[in-house]
């Protein structure tokens, strides 16, 4: 049986995620070089409207028996393991998202295919798949050569353009019975994000603070700057986890995706889970004492200084500027 490359499509509340199209785009590229077929996998029946968007794949496998509503990691892994018995694959791309966290290691244990996490680039060199993974909060990259190009790869969201993965072509579909898998964890309900006092996704200007702001007592410095700029304050995860700002102000993987005209990153290291939420901003200016902070890799302007020192000066300067007109 001819093996292929599988892209496991991800949907949230009936909508395919961008990561799905990113995986299809890069999957198509790899499949062409390796001369292998590319298949997309839809977990669960009743997703007819979804499969027609997966035309970048040669065909779509719809797994009957798998649950479409928020499946758990072991349930997803079980469905894919069963699929592999019928449709062997060498390379499996899965999304590196919170929904899929845990799927890779479980699937790897059950299939003995190696699992690779945090993949941000995939290239074929001399017929070998070379994966680039980002580790240590984006400070170090690791290149991995997959033996026999065989493995399960978790694709970090935002690593590839989703555009090449979108296609108007309607792909052939095959429904595959994978059996209803017993899972002990049951999904109960979604809990909507609390409506915050400000909707940070609607702001033109965001002043973002990270752990470098050091204490809650310093937050007013950011508030004052935001006021001077007519924007709002948002934050990285540690600031939210400390309870200094509400969850509705979090930017990143678990928080909000923002695309303001201006994003000022103050004392934020630039871990991939944070940049995932802000790298689409039109202008990014970062202040960080660490000249090697990964945030500078996604910024237009950088300042290597103590944010507590620059902040009041910047606010002051903006106010004087306004007075001068």
């Amino acid at each position: 049986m001819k093996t292929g490359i599988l892209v496991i499509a991800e949907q949230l509340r009936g909508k395919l995620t961008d990561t799905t199209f990113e995986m299809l785009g890069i999957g198509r590229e790899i499949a062409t070089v390796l001369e292998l077929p590319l298949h997309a996998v839809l977990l669960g029946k009743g997703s007819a409207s979804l499969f027609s968007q997966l035309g970048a794949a040669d065909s779509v496998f719809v797994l009957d028996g798998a649950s479409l509503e928020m499946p758990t990691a072991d349930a997803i892994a079980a469905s894919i393991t069963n699929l592999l018995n019928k449709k062997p694959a060498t390379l499996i791309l899965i999304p590196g998202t919170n929904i899929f966290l845990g799927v890779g290691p479980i699937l790897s244990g059950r299939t003995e295919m190696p699992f690779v996490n945090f993949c941000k680039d995939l290239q074929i060199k001399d017929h070998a798949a070379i994966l680039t993974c980002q580790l240590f909060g984006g400070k170090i990259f690791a290149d991995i050569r997959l033996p026999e190009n065989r493995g399960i790869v978790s694709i970090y969201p935002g690593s590839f353009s989703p555009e090449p993965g979108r296609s108007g072509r309607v792909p052939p579909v095959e429904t595959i019975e994978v059996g209803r898998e017993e899972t002990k964890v049951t999904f109960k309900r979604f809990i909507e994000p609390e409506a915050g006092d400000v909707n940070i996704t609607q702001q033109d200007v965001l002043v973002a603070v990270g752990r470098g702001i050091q204490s809650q007592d310093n937050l007013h410095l950011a508030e004052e700057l935001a006021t001077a700029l007519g924007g709002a304050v948002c934050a990285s995860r540690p600031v939210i986890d400390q309870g200094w700002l509400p969850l509705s102000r979090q930017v990143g993987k678990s928080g909000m995706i923002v695309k303001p005209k201006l994003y000022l990153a103050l004392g934020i290291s630039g871990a991939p889970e944070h940049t995932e939420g802000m790298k689409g901003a039109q202008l990014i200016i970062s202040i960080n004492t660490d000249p090697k902070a990964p945030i500078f890799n996604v910024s237009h302007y950088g300042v290597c200084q103590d944010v507590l020192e620059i902040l009041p000066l910047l606010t002051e300067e903006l106010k004087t500027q306004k007075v001068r007109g």
Partner: protein
Amino acid sequence: MNIITCLKMVPDVVEELEVGPDGKSLDTQWLRLRLSEPDEHALEQSLLLKEKHGGKVTVLAFEAPELEEALFTALAKGADRAIKFTGDFSGLGGPVAAQILSSFLRSNPQLLTADTLILTGSQAIDDLEGELSPCLAEKLGFPFIGVVTGIEFDPERKKAVVLKEFAGGLRGEFEVPIPAVLGIQAAEKPPRYVPVAKVRSAMKSMKIEPREVPRPDSLGRLPVEQLYKPEVAGMAEMIEGSPSEIAGRLVEILSKRALA
């Protein structure tokens, strides 16, 4: 409740990281380690559960530089026991660590009771081969759920109702039968602070229990071709000068774009 918390030391990324002479691993000479951040939350969540439902918190860790201090800090915060696996574990991958932990737990039935809850951090920054928690759950035959930010334990029904984070602030509520393995992303409250004096007194009055474990045949690591620092794309234009010159220059940039 019988709460087991797995702790792991990771490089402190606020420091400069250097690649070692082999080009495939970090240079450990100047490496400063700290407790993995999600583990601080796993520990906090364990202590909160103990305060609410009673029981014991046992922390488990593999020997690593600077680990002792982290373990004594955990004891000072309220953990009841700290067990350290001794041996050479450099380069140990999550899935193999899970194997060792599960055999240890299986051979210590007093740690694996009907009301056991195993809390780990959700995901570490060096997790190239995949998270330990789902692997541990598989090995023990326990249910698993990760990216957890809240736990409501129901002792009567032997169930936990947990919150899992998705994206955009959206969360899901799941029901998990106990015993279970939960990957904690954030505790319900920020991790508590413990004064150094209390850690010192824990060092005097409490013990870390060593358990020798032979180095596994395979560490289950992926073949790394090379490790390197990402090339700075040269994208950010760095602004230099005195703080007030910098502030002036920034306002200039903003004004040009009608943002100030």
